[in-house]
């Protein structure tokens, strides 16, 4: 009797990529809900537009590349790309912004490299940074949270704004919009002023960024519990942010914002839990992940403090993505039998003498 052959091992698959991605998708839900609550319907439109565009772009590229749709479209990774990108975008973004970003992210940063697993850079962050440098105006359309700001737009009002660029008669865009805390901080620095006030505004304003961050933390906890992420990157990244900002703050508290401000403002928590942890573009060794995360934290604070852009997390992630192959290479865990200081050495020596 003849048998078809297959390589070992011959055991049941215990998990799959789509399970992993589904976990992440669920983990994004609490943060998204809170963001919609705080920042208005625009966030929801962003998510829908970006996710839809990302999915279509992936399908189109697969078709062009004559690759099967099956595993690639059902692994749900592309949904994460779109979703994460959307959560970085301003709540008053025009409709094309998430679309362009998602398409660029999927086509250039992911599919040109061969699709899932092969990309060197985090697609969502590539999409975000491309939008940031190309459409700075659209990218600064941040509506103020809850009270009186963008969140007060009704669903139809928000839709009209997103898709048609029309606002309710009485409201001007400038009335809705507001610089983000990071931006406010920057302006204060350039125009002189009290940093303390801005730091406080993060907590005031309904403490909104605190709630948002708590929601993301909940999602992160779920991913951790399900084994979708490991602790190294988030912890190291937050440590990097705190240490670097603490250092600068210690040097000149009038010029640099404090660690808590840095931690809560902008995308640090979200980035640490959802973006830097993207397994494909992150380092894959335990020590490497510590280096990777720490590097992101440090770079993010440096870019925030000295660079042109108010938030450096996305750039920091791309910059550390660059270094991943080298980090991986130099942080290989010691192989079985080669652990430094392991007892084997002494045994060998005694053997050598005998």
């Amino acid at each position: 009797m003849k048998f078809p052959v297959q390589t070992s091992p011959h055991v049941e698959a215990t998990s799959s990529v789509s399970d992993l991605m589904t976990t992440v998708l669920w983990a994004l839900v609490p943060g998204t809900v809170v963001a919609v609550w705080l920042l208005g319907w625009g966030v929801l439109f962003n998510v829908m537009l970006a996710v839809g565009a990302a999915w279509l772009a992936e399908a189109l590229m697969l078709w062009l590349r004559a690759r099967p749709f099956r595993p690639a479209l059902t692994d749900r990774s592309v949904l994460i790309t779109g979703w994460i990108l959307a959560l970085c975008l301003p709540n008053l973004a025009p409709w094309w912004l998430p679309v362009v970003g998602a398409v660029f992210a999927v086509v250039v940063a992911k599919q040109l490299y061969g699709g899932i697993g092969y990309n060197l850079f985090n697609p969502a962050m590539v999409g975000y940074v491309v939008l940031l440098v190309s459409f700075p105006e659209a990218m600064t359309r941040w509506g103020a949270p809850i009270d009186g700001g963008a969140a007060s737009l009704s669903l139809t009002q928000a839709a009209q704004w997103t898709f048609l660029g029309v606002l309710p008669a009485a409201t001007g865009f400038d009335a809705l919009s507001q610089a983000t805390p990071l931006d406010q901080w920057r302006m204060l620095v350039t125009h002189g002023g009290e940093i303390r006030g801005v730091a406080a505004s993060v907590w005031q304003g309904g403490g909104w960024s605190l709630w948002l961050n708590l929601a993301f933390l909940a999602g992160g906890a779920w991913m951790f519990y399900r084994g979708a992420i490991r602790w190294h990157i988030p912890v190291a990244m937050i440590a990097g942010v705190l240490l670097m900002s603490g250092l600068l703050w210690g040097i000149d508290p009038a010029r640099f914002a404090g660690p808590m401000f840095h931690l809560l403002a902008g995308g640090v928590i979200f980035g640490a839990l959802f973006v830097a942890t993207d397994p494909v573009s992150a380092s894959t060794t335990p020590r490497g992940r510590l280096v990777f995360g720490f590097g992101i934290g440090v770079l993010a604070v440096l870019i925030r403090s000295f660079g042109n852009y108010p938030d450096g997390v996305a750039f920091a992630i791309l910059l550390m993505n660059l270094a991943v192959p080298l980090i991986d290479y130099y942080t290989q865990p010691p192989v079985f039998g080669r652990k430094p200081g392991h007892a084997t050495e002494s045994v060998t020596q005694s053997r050598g003498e005998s």
Partner: protein
Amino acid sequence: MSDPRLSELALDGLWKNNPALVQVLGLCPLLAISNTTVNALGLAIATLVTLVVSNGVVSLIRDWVRSEVRLPVYVMVIASVVTIIELVMNAHFHSLYNTLGIFIPLIVTNCIIIARAEGFASRHGFGFSVFDGFVMGAGFGVVLIALGALREVIGFGTLLADAEQLFGPVALDWGIRVLPEQMTFMLALMPPGAFIGLALLVAFKQAIDQRQSRRARAARGARSGEPTAEVAG
């Protein structure tokens, strides 16, 4: 070395062995100066002239230089040609000269030029060398201009804007708007856009080549009656 056929030389320079797309040389000016068509055109012409002149001169003096000083002498020839061009541009195309900036003197180190001087002009007669310089320069220039046009259209939404810098007042209204301003994608003007734009051009060429060779293989396969495996792209 036997004399090549002119048509082959032309095909080589423009397509098969295109200095920018295949040899991937001369990238610095290619990427730095291709943000508008006019800049690209200006540098393309400067490069082409340099290539033609330096190839011609090298071919004329090739019997006079000994091997150990060959390289310095060629570099010298090229540097002189470039400096002369630089001076002339400074005098007669001043605003273009200002925008191209450091990349005019840097034509000296454009690897294509020394490569052609060494690889071709030092072994062929004057006519062939000049022709080779011309097609190579043209091959490089076409890519430079294509990239310039691509980036200008996507990044500014215009084409041939500021043509007067190069062509004088007659060209004042040559510039046309291709895309409305709201639809421009500024990335194209930035360093990443330059890299990705060139990537698109090279990929475009590779796609055409691959298609052709696939066809050729299919044709050959059909003749010998073998089934050919379709290569999925």
